[in-house]
């Protein structure tokens, strides 16, 4: 099963190229150029990992992050940042983002982080499923 990744950055060139590269590495990639577009995509479809730029015109990364977490708390988010905004990325991590990456990114480390982020999410979901099964079994009285 492909991991579903959403790239959010205001630089069209950047997201598109990165999307292609990730697709080549067998990811299912969607792109969004701002926060609102990203939120719309999340509502419509299923997403595992979001790579979110901190600095964007309109809704900024932190605000978008908050809304994503409200909407779908289980989605793991990796913050993408320049040097000047490391602090913002850290703030984002405090708000529930999984990790951050410095631009320009090394593809290998991005892939690695997406994988582990997905793993966390998958484990999390697995635990929820287990809990649900337990609950179900309890109710059945077995």
């Amino acid at each position, binding site marked *: 099963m492909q991991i579903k990744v959403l790239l959010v950055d205001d630089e069209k*060139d950047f997201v598109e*190229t990165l999307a*292609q590269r990730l697709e*080549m590495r067998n990811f299912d990639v969607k792109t969004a150029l701002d926060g609102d577009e990203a939120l719309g995509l999340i509502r419509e479809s299923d997403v595992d990992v979001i790579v979110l730029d901190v600095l964007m015109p309109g809704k900024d990364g932190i605000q978008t992050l908050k809304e994503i977490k409200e909407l779908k708390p289980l989605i793991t988010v990796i913050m993408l940042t*320049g*040097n000047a905004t490391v602090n913002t990325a850290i703030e984002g991590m405090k708000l529930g983002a999984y990790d951050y990456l*410095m*631009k*320009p*990114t090394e593809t290998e480390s991005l892939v690695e982080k997406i994988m582990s982020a997905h793993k966390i999410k998958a484990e999390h979901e697995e635990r929820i499923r287990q809990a649900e099964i337990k609950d179900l079994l309890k109710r059945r009285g077995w």
Partner: protein
Amino acid sequence: MNSKNLWTRLTKGLLHDSDDDNANRYLILRRNIFILMILITIIPLIIMAVIYQHEYQASLKKEIVNPLKTLANKTKHSFELFLEERLSVIRFIASSYSFEELSDQKTLNRIFKALMDEYCCLVDLGLINKKGIQLSYIGPYEFLGKNYSKQSWFQEVVVKGNYISDVFMGYRQFPHVAIAVLRRTEEGRYLILRATIDTSKFDNLIASMGLDQESDAFLINREGILQTPSRFYGKILDQYPVPFPRGNYGSIVVEEVDPQNRKMLVAYAPFTRSDYIMVLAKQRSALLKPWYTLRSEMLFTFAISVVTIILVVFKLTDTVVKRVKDADEKRELAYREIQHTHKLSSIGRLAAGVAHEINNPMAIINEKAGLMKDLVSYDDQFRKKEKFLGLTDSILQSVERCKEITHRLLGFARRMEVQLVRLDLNELIQETLGFLDKEALYRNIELRLQLTDNLPYIFSDRGQLQQVFLNILSNAFAAVEDEGQIVITSWEEDSDTVGVSIQDNGSGMSGETLKNIFDPFFTTKQKGGTGLGLAITYGIVKKMGGDIKVTSKQGEGTIFTVYLPEKAKIVPGE
């Protein structure tokens, strides 16, 4: 004209910076202030001293002259009174007795006796008729029948009615004065009564003046013949040797130099009814003794004042000029530092902006190149695969380098968060050296540590201090040849400062390099230097409240000295 020029130059030099170069400027300033201060203090002092001396001299003279005059006048009056008294007695006798009675020896004798009882000093008494014949005479001489008609005094008494003679030596060599009165009787006859008076009484009158050793009082006649003995100018009937004012005048005081070369103040008081002049002479030096004392005291005070003023002004000028110089230097230094800080901060802002803006296109390049690489490496049929992979790799490497540069730029610009911890500077230095051990070993560089034991702990930021020493040490490593030497010394500078110096025997720096060494983007390294290392170092040390100094000589080496306060005083960033 000349003095005007001088004044203009002086004030101009004082009020404005002169055109001369710096070292001279302070010398000239000092000289000008000194001269001006001396002038404005000493000139009034001199003027005051001169005026005071003049005024005092004038008033003193008045004070000396007036009593002299008064005394002379008083004594003159005593003399006149004495003579007038004698004259009036004779006049009285002449008028109360008839010609016949007076020409009678017996009656005359009786009158003479009575007078002798009443008035002292009478020597003789005689009657002379109109023709100048002595008709009767009581006294020690044989004057009876003597004819006086040819003598000048006789002529005078006939004209004036009375006569007082000059002093002459008479009986038994005593000085005498003759007095005579003329009376016209009812019958129209003339009678002239003549008496001689012993002038020993004159001496009493002079003695009663109570004169001191430096003074002399005596009578002279209009010809300058001494009528009483003088202490300075000889005995009776000698010529008074000093030229004196002739003619009619009231009493006056003149300054004279006598034959003995003494400066004298002399009061002359001419008699009104006779030809005598009362003379009172006093030595000027005696009179002016208080004046001389005062003058020498004044001179002494003046000299002391002048010396004091000069000393004080000198010292003051010195202090003032030194202060001015200090202030100038401080201003210059502060100005330079502000300039530097300003430069750093604006460069910092610029660097941050540039770094940030470059990051995004750099990210795109990175991804595009990455995609190219991906495409090429996934396509097995691609013909020039190796070549393309090499190209994309070098693009990616360049991006990596750019990333490194922007990272450093931001590191330089960013307001670093400081974490103060208690740390041992020696330990920190050794720790930092750990990073460079390998290179030292490899290049055979001698690292000599001269660390002072028991160096006080300091509170500072460990990471940033490590950066400081690492930067300086890297530069030292770059400067020395293989087998060079680097000496690291630490010491306690004062109660709350520790110092660390890092000395290498490398290539050293030129003055021009030294001037720019802490400026950002200044580098002498051929490649790989960003020119930020020492700028960051400078920024950190300053932020920690410390100071950094560098001395260098080309070909001999460089010494960096870092001073750190025991408790970092965080200076707010720009």
